[in-house]
């Protein structure tokens, strides 16, 4: 499609409002990476900027489309994914990127999260995961780790946290990865791969809340990042090296490649095993866990495509009248 937007675009071309986040918020890092990704899509891959469609729900992270200047829909709490499905099916030619938070998507939006994956809708979901509901001042979210003290868990959170990677792998996502907001290059690479993967892509990003996520002796901007780095994250590649003895039998180990391979047919099972093993020591894995483009997308199953987009059809009477008459003739 012809575009009137001059390329190459610059960051200024796709910058919307000035950011509304607290100083030091992880979301700044995510936003910078997102803008870089959009520039890459347009400038390097030739995607018309007009064809990028962003969505979000409610929460600090859902301010993201406002930080951009692209076609967008800023929706209600938990409901951006079903809107994204409507967009992606009505016009499969659009690159649909949905932004959300851990409360938005893994609590109130969980129904849509699971079914979007199972449908394999061609949407990239970027979650800014910070374990708390920031915009309502810090209550525990579904990803809050056991023991986390927040205004809604004053004696420490009891029970398990949602592990979105595990759910996404189990439900058959085409792409499952997790980035961290403070490593921009890796995050850019992860999101680029996710967007260019056919089918549903989850990019969960640890994006610390510097205001409400409080760990013992780790308050404020710097220390909470240190806490994540030192106490919480574990790269999938490192997990592969460190945990293979615990996770795999001797026979299995003999067959294993040297490095973790997200494209191997065993990636789903290996990923799940490493996630579980890491959880035993209170760690969450990061990195690219899985790419599997073997499944048809929702649009393919629905019989629509960029070339045959329902939103772009000629719905004038003249073009369809004979077929309408035929349809009605069957109702006699």
């Amino acid at each position: 499609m012809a575009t009137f937007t001059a390329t190459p675009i610059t960051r200024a071309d796709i910058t919307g409002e000035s950011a509304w986040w607290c100083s030091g918020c992880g979301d700044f890092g995510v936003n910078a990476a997102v803008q870089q990704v959009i520039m890459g899509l347009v400038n390097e891959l030739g995607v018309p900027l007009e064809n990028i469609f962003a969505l979000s729900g409610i929460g600090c992270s859902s301010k993201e489309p406002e930080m951009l200047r692209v076609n967008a829909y800023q929706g209600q709490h938990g409901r951006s994914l079903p809107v994204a499905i409507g967009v992606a099916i009505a016009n499969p030619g659009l690159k649909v990127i949905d932004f959300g938070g851990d409360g938005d998507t893994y609590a109130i939006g969980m129904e849509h999260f699971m079914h979007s994956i199972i449908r394999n809708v061609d949407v990239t979901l970027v979650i800014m995961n910070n374990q708390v509901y920031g915009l309502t001042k810090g209550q525990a979210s579904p990803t809050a780790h056991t023991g986390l003290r927040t205004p809604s868990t004053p004696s420490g959170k009891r029970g398990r946290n949602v592990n979105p990677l595990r759910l996404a792998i189990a439900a058959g996502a085409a792409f499952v990865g997790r980035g961290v907001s403070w490593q921009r290059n890796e995050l850019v690479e992860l999101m680029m791969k996710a967007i260019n993967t056919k089918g549903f892509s989850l990019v969960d990003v640890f994006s610390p809340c510097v205001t409400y996520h409080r760990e013992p002796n780790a308050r404020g901007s710097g220390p909470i990042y240190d806490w994540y780095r030192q106490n919480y994250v574990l790269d999938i590649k490192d997990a592969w090296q460190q945990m293979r003895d615990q996770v795999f039998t001797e026979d299995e180990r003999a067959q294993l490649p040297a490095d973790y391979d997200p494209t191997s047919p065993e990636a789903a099972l290996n990923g799940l095993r490493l996630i579980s093993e890491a959880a035993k020591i209170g760690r969450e894995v990061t990195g690219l866990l899985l790419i599997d483009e073997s499944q048809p997308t929702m649009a393919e199953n629905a019989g629509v495509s960029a070339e045959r987009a329902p939103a772009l059809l000629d719905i004038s009477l003249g073009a369809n009248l004979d077929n309408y008459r035929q349809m009605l003739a069957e109702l006699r």
Partner: protein
Amino acid sequence: MTTIQIYGAGRAGDGTNTNIAILAQALKDAGAWTFRWLDEVYSNIQTRDSGFAVRAADRPIYGPDDEFDILQAFDEGAFIDIAGEGRIPPITRLKRGGIVIYDSSPRLEAVNAGHEIDLAKIQGILEEKRARVFGLPMGRLAKEECGNYIVRGTISVGVIAHMIGIPEEAILDRFAKNFGAGSPVYEMNAKALRMGIEHARNEGWEAPELRVSFTPLAEDTRQVLLGDEAVAAGAIVAGCRVYAGYPITPASEVLEFMAEKIGQFGGALIQADSEMAAAHHVIGAAVAGARSMTATAGPGFSLMQEAISAAGITETPMVIVICTRGGPATGLPTRQGQEELNEAVFGGHGDFARIVLAASEPSQCFYVMERVFNLAERYQCPVFLLIDRMLAQSSYTVPELDPSRFVIDRGKLLTAEQVAERYLNNGHRYQRYELTEDGISYRVIPGTPGITNYYSNTNEHTEDGYITEEEVVRQRQMDKRFTKRMELIRADKDLPEAVQHGSPEARIGFIGYGGVYGPILEAVERLESQGTKAKFLEMRTLWPFPGDRVREFVDSCDVVYVTEYSAGAQLRGLVQREATGPSPKLRSLLRYDGRIMTPGWILEKMKEA
């Protein structure tokens, strides 16, 4: 009017619906206008009492008569309240001197076992009705002679066809269309049919007063369809190309019709995971530029409330067909009700523009979809169409539907050429919520060259679509999309006007919408034939409420019966709120037992009101 009404009573899973449907099709082929309805259907797949009925007449009809001429009975549920829960068995609605055709053999298969008809047990009611009773061991004949128990209903169809004078060929024609001529199913049914006809002939079972004398049409282009099918077909002709829906009675037939047809027109069907999801799929597809819709019932519409608020503030054309049923909550899932009016008119939080329309019969269901979609795009707001369970799931004969009457008006949706002319070539900046003169901003289809700020927002927003909480902007946006928009809508000539029926000079009036249409029309006729003039204001637009029109109607009457399927008198509430205030002229005729009104029910209720 020549009219005949036939009732089939059995147990869910017996195939009674199929038998009645075949009779309806044959009657229509004979030239009759038919109304076929699911009279008694429990929210259950097998074993509960079930009743299906057809009425045929020599002119279009839009509802049942009070009593039926023929009762086809498979078990004693037709005559007695087996469960003892207060069910009123269908025999009570048999005309005095009417015909009962029953299966005199025992239940021969495990499904639906028991409840055989014991004449001794029901002698009282049969005598009271002076019923003419014809017993035939249909079950045994079907099993032993035709090789399948299920065709015992076809044997009774044969008996009925003989008695009312439907030729064998007419029914065989329908079997051929339904099952394929010569197929094993066809042959089995043909055999059963002939067996019934032969038996009735040999036994001399005749009903000369019921012999139908309809005139077949040389070329019969009339339609036979459900309200749900009419809505779905109308939506497709109106250009609906994304349908999202969750199965729910009585809206599932919309989903099923779309599932079969929308793909043939390049559209997509999304069977949603919930009504919450469905409504948001509709928003997404509409934002992307497709005409899209969903259909649901009361419980599903409740789940859609947050989405309709979202459509309101984002100014997204959203179409929802609400197929109403008895509530609240699960309520009476398979029964008639009109309890969703308030939710359609007042539902969703916040103030936003909306339109609520109604339809009375399938032709209206079909043609109104043109307006529904045009209004939704013209005013960029949610539009709801209310049809009730009677209309949604009953089958009507209506005149041929003409798709060429549709005009597609997409309102301020710009083509790429218009975008270039309006914005790109003169440096004018596009804004999704631009404050134009009439307050309606321009939409584009995302992907249109040159537009990269098509920004819809459920937060209060600036003209650019970005979040704001500033008081001046907030007020302007609210006035633009709500206050001013409703003024524009109110003046729109495309809002279907209320239609007045009966004698203009009458001082007795009825007001109603949807499934009261046929019953009130006939009640008015009966009143007039008894020398009492009456009239009926058929409501087609419920929001914005045509207060002036209704006030004028009420002013012209001494008494007005607001007739509806709601214990809460929701329509009367609107009439009072928007037209008359509390008025001594207003009376309520309310039916909320889940059953369809009949003309006689209305006349009877008037005495108490």
